[in-house]
């Protein structure tokens, strides 16, 4: 039987095995923490369908108890559709001297409350409407710094007016 001897040169296969082990462990760690996309195309589609259906439902609903003050008179706008109220609000802002405070309290606030009730609690939103003139109004949470924001817009048709009016809803996961 050969006598056993010690030599550093004889350790090469053990060192190779340790190098292999290290590489395999690094590979395993990478695989363990690899993340597949959390937002699938279906999740984005789901958000798109929700955003579009919500804007559509909001604009085509009617609201009771909306009004504004003008020359010491209260003008009631009961059972008008939301899109009619938005256009009326923008028209009044563009063309008349009705006080903004009256419009905010009498029209924009009920619009805001209606949209807040409609939007599911898992979403935050921002709503903006503007005319081709200078008028615009906005309510909801600020969008700055948000990721994965879905945006839907609709033109509001007004046969009696040459101006165009647009409504935009942006939603994101709260």
């Amino acid at each position, binding site marked *: 039987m050969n006598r*056993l001897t010690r030599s550093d040169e004889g350790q090469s296969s053990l060192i190779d*095995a340790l190098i*292999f082990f290290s*590489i395999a462990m690094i590979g395993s760690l990478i695989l*363990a923490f690899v993340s597949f996309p959390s937002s699938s*195309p279906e999740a984005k589609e*789901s958000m798109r369908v*929700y955003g579009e259906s919500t804007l559509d439902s909001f604009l085509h*609903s009617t609201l009771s108890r909306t009004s504004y003050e003008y020359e010491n008179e209260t003008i009631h706008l009961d059972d008008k559709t939301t899109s009619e109220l938005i256009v009326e609000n923008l028209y009044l802002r563009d063309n008349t001297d009705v006080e903004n405070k009256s419009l905010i309290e009498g029209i924009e606030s009920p619009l805001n409350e209606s949209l807040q009730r409609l939007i599911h609690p898992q979403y935050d939103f921002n709503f903006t409407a503007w005319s081709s003139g200078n008028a615009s109004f906005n309510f909801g949470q600020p969008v700055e710094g948000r990721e994965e924001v879905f945006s839907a817009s609709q033109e509001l048709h007004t046969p009696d007016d040459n101006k165009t009016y647009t409504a935009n809803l942006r939603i994101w996961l709260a």
Partner: protein
Amino acid sequence: MKRKMDDKGVVGFYEDVPALLIVVVATVIFLASIYSAIGRHEQKTSISDFEREALEFADAVRSSPLLLHEGEVGRFDATKIQGLESENLTRSLNYPDFFYRVEITDVSNYSVRYNQTWSREPEHNFTAEDYQEGRKVIYLSVNIVVDTNEVHTARMRVEVWR
């Protein structure tokens, strides 16, 4: 580095066997992590497929002629909402191969609200095991038309599972 081969090195059992064990252990761990990653990927894909089915189902409810007012998608007739039974909805949707619950919540500022729920559920009380093969909740918004001067906003929540 040039390897020197002679008989001065450590004899087999003291070097080659430990090296072999290390290689086997490393290989087993690496293969296990690949298997686990593939499993997670397949689970994601399966959830995604079910999510697509759920979306299609929610869209079918939203466009069901049994509910629509004058055929407009997303605009439900208040009378139809009140009169429709779960069995009729299930039949009109060709008996889907999963369970469902559709909830309509009227969130308008009118005093009369039109809330409704339709479902096709297992007869026993459900447990976590009922959701094993997938569960998805889809949120949509719809209108409920009472008459031309009264159109409500409503949330529609569609939950499907199998």
